[in-house]
């Protein structure tokens, strides 16, 4: 009877895991890819010390380690599905052990098939369902729940009270590194009540709870400071439903970023044009679409097809948050302004949980190689070489670095008057263009300047800029320029 129930439960759990893995991997591939990019893990003392300040330290460290493998959405979804499956299994086992006998001896299933005995363990499906739906893409929260049920099951299978007490006390320091204090408190309270029912010396069972109360201040003083508000009541989990707008918008933006990183501009244009709902989507879509047009050198042709009002919609005002930071990096990368792309990549890394991230380091390696900053590229490669999933990247970039050392011919000055963000966009673009010899880079910069003047309706500046660098001299003007030029001519002819 029990065996049949087990088989049915395991089948249901497996089906749930498969459903979760297939759905998330296909619906949110770029969210997983971005999670890997935002992650950082390196087996060094400094990194471990950093994690000690981020409770629960061990779980966060483990989550960071596992997220290194998220570059493939299917691997990522499988890891999360396995964690959810293990949580469900442990919950099932714990609930099976719950049924009345708290001394740890497994109670045999009632021969009469008592429905409580058979139905209660099925509640073990609830944690993975809730976690999968509300804590998707939050591996740390999923692992915390896994460890919660692991410690609960560990407690339940211990045969006698003394051993249970020792286990419960041991749960405090171990559990403190594995889960947030309220979750650990809940675990200890459950353990307390389970023993309270049967143990005549139940009072002694307050020990683990007292120990838990003392742990955060002691840890804070001796190991790593924990802000006062995070010591006892902070669960550290913000539930976001899998199908929420937040996740969908997140996936959309991450798709834009990833397609840009991969240079898939046509795909990006397609995605950007069909997105019409959320306001955020429109703002982001417009900018990415214009960026794609610039990358494809079609911006001067298609500018007027977009609902752009002014030059400020070409990029975001500089700020250190996900959308703006990523976009502005891509904007300057498209222009070949590697120092500014580096600036945004580094800023993006700083604002991540670990103060650095893989995507940022990889990008900075590429940009520093382009700008001839060999030592810094080498430093980042040495760090990436210590991680688990960058062997190929490091090998390729080392070869590129050696090649670049032989062929680098940029004449870079100590100082210049090409400050970024210091002038209105068209002026910045024209100033920058003077420092770049590459024709395609110059043309993109010049196009941004001319397009800005069109949007301003500034005929004089348009005329001057369109003559700059001889890029459009004696050539047929692109559509947007021609229309604006015709409009100027027409207005000049009017009496």
């Amino acid at each position, binding site marked *: 009877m029990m065996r049949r129930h087990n088989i049915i439960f395991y089948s249901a759990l497996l089906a749930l895991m498969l459903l979760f893995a297939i759905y998330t991997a296909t619906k949110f591939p770029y969210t997983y890819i971005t999670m890997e990019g935002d992650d950082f893990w390196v087996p060094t003392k400094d990194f471990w010390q950093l994690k000690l300040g981020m409770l629960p330290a061990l779980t966060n460290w483990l989550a960071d380690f596992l997220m290194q493998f998220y570059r493939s959405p299917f691997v990522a979804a499988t890891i999360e599905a396995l964690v959810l499956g293990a949580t469900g299994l442990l919950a099932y086992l714990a609930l099976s052990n719950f049924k009345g006998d708290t001394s740890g001896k497994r109670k045999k299933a009632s021969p009469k098939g008592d429905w409580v005995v058979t139905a209660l363990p099925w509640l073990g499906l609830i944690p993975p369902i809730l976690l999968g739906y509300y804590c998707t893409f939050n591996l740390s929260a999923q692992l915390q729940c896994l460890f919660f049920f692991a410690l609960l099951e560990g407690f339940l299978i211990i045969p006698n009270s003394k051993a249970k007490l020792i286990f419960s006390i041991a749960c405090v320091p171990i559990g403190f590194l594995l889960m947030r204090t309220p979750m650990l408190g809940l675990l200890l309270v459950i353990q307390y009540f389970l023993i309270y029912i049967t143990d005549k010396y139940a009072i002694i069972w307050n020990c683990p709870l007292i120990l838990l109360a003392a742990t955060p201040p002691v840890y804070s003083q001796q190991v790593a400071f924990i802000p006062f508000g995070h010591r006892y009541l902070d669960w550290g989990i913000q539930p976001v439903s899998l199908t929420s707008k937040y996740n969908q918008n997140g996936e959309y933006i991450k798709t834009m970023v990833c397609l840009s990183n991969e240079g898939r501009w046509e795909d990006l244009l397609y995605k950007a044009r069909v997105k019409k709902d959320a306001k955020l989507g429109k703002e982001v879509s417009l900018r990415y679409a214009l960026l794609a047009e610039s990358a494809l050198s079609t911006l001067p042709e298609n500018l007027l097809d977009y609902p752009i009002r002014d030059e400020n919609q070409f990029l975001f005002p500089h700020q250190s948050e996900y959308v703006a930071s990523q976009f502005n990096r891509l904007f300057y990368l498209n222009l070949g302004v590697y120092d500014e792309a580096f600036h945004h990549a580094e800023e993006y890394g700083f604002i991540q949980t670990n103060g650095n991230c893989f995507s940022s380091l990889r990008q900075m390696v590429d940009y520093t190689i382009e700008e001839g900053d060999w030592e810094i590229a080498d430093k980042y490669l040495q760090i990436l070489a210590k991680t688990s999933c960058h062997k190929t990247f490091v090998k390729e970039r080392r070869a590129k670095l050696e090649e670049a050392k032989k062929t680098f011919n940029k004449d870079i000055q100590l100082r210049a*008057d090409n400050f970024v963000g210091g002038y209105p966009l068209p002026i910045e673009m024209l100033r920058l263009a003077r420092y770049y010899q590459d024709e395609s880079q110059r043309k993109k910069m010049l196009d941004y300047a001319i397009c800005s003047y069109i949007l301003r309706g500034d005929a004089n500046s348009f005329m001057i800029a369109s003559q700059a660098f001889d890029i459009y001299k004696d050539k047929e003007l692109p559509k947007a320029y021609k229309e604006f030029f015709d409009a100027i001519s027409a207005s000049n002819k009017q009496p």
Partner: protein
Amino acid sequence: MKEKCFYIFCLAVLLVSCSKREAKESVDTLPAIYPDYIGVTVPENICPLDFSVPEAEHIQALVENDRGETLEESGADHIEMPVKAWHNLLQGAQELTVTVSAWNKEHPEGATYKPFKINIAKDEIDPWIAYRLLPPGYESWNHMGIYQRNIECFDVEPIIENSQNNHGCVNCHSFANYDPKDFTFHARGENGGTIVMRDGKMKKVDIKAMSNGRHGSYNIWHPSKRYIAFSSNSTHQSFYGQSKNKIEVYDLWSDLIVYDIDNEKVLQDERFTDSLNLEMFPSFSPDGKWLYFSTAKPVNMPMETDKLHYSIVRVPFDETTGKLGEIDTVYSAHEQGGTAMMPRITPDGRFMLFSLGECGGYNLYHMESDLKMMDLETREMVPAEVLNSPRAESFHAWSSNGRWVMYVTKRYDGRYTRLMFAYWDGEKFHKPFLLPQKNPEDNIQLLMAYNVPEFIKAPVVVSKDELAKFFTHE
């Protein structure tokens, strides 16, 4: 029988792995060790100079002092020497001879390199240092803090981390007379302010409220422990689209103010708080009679960086009233060129170490900036080239006996500052050495930059909770 064979095999493996290897070749070149400790001069009380040999699979080092005592260590990719044995070796010695053998692709059978010397100075160094660790770049950070390190060993502990002040910035720490009980730093962000600890008692001070909106930035204690001189800076950053310097940091305005701790008021001299000049990086002479600082005529920044040149001046300081006297120009940027910042006077009052760049402010962001030294008696420059590299050097501090200078350098990668120490024997500087780490690679792996290093005689003892409460409760 099988079991026996297995144990014999295990024993053999153990013996082979523990035994000392013999290098098959001798090479007449010095080993390429990291960090470069070849020919450096170190204090007797410094922690072990652990090092690595890049690309090596196995390293052995034999360290011998001039009394013939030796220390032998080996390692896979770096050498870690025991602290106690190292100190015993250095005690009373004048020099060490280090012989390194390494096994690598070039020398798979091992090569013994030409031995090198490490000189040991009799003058001790202050055992503790305090410094800030922060991301090296631009506007953002997630983690930063002010830390203290015992340089006789490898113990590091935080004085304050920004997890204690709502992830705001923590900066501008300084100590009075190298005393960890007299300490100040600034915390920005929510409930921020200037924390002043005198005789071990802490208080939060609102410098801004006492000085018509001027907050306290770079600061220095007066030796009497009654005053702290601050520069108040409106600091901005601009980013080059393409240049070697990458970033220009500058003040739109900056002033000089003096905080009187006893009377809890800020003293302001109109000459140094008007908009006609920029003032920054104050520094008292060790006798407390002079206040040195950098000053320049403001220009349109960042466009006119080339025209911004800071000079170093000094004014007499009246300890009883806190009043400042007539200006005496020590280094004239107009006459001598460049931009001179961060004057730090030797404890005997004789020399001034400062940083000199081509133009602009904040020399740490200027690749070309170097440390320079001036004899204050003759106003002649003293050679200090050995301290410098093609990249920026700055944020220097003297040890309490005036024999050691600590400073930050960008020499290794142009971006992440690292700490260097150099011996000053009264006449010349000796080859500097990088702050030793137990695993030398920590200097590479660390994605943080050091700044504002200061010597202290003992560690700062402060309760983390007590400190955090200043930023939690108003």
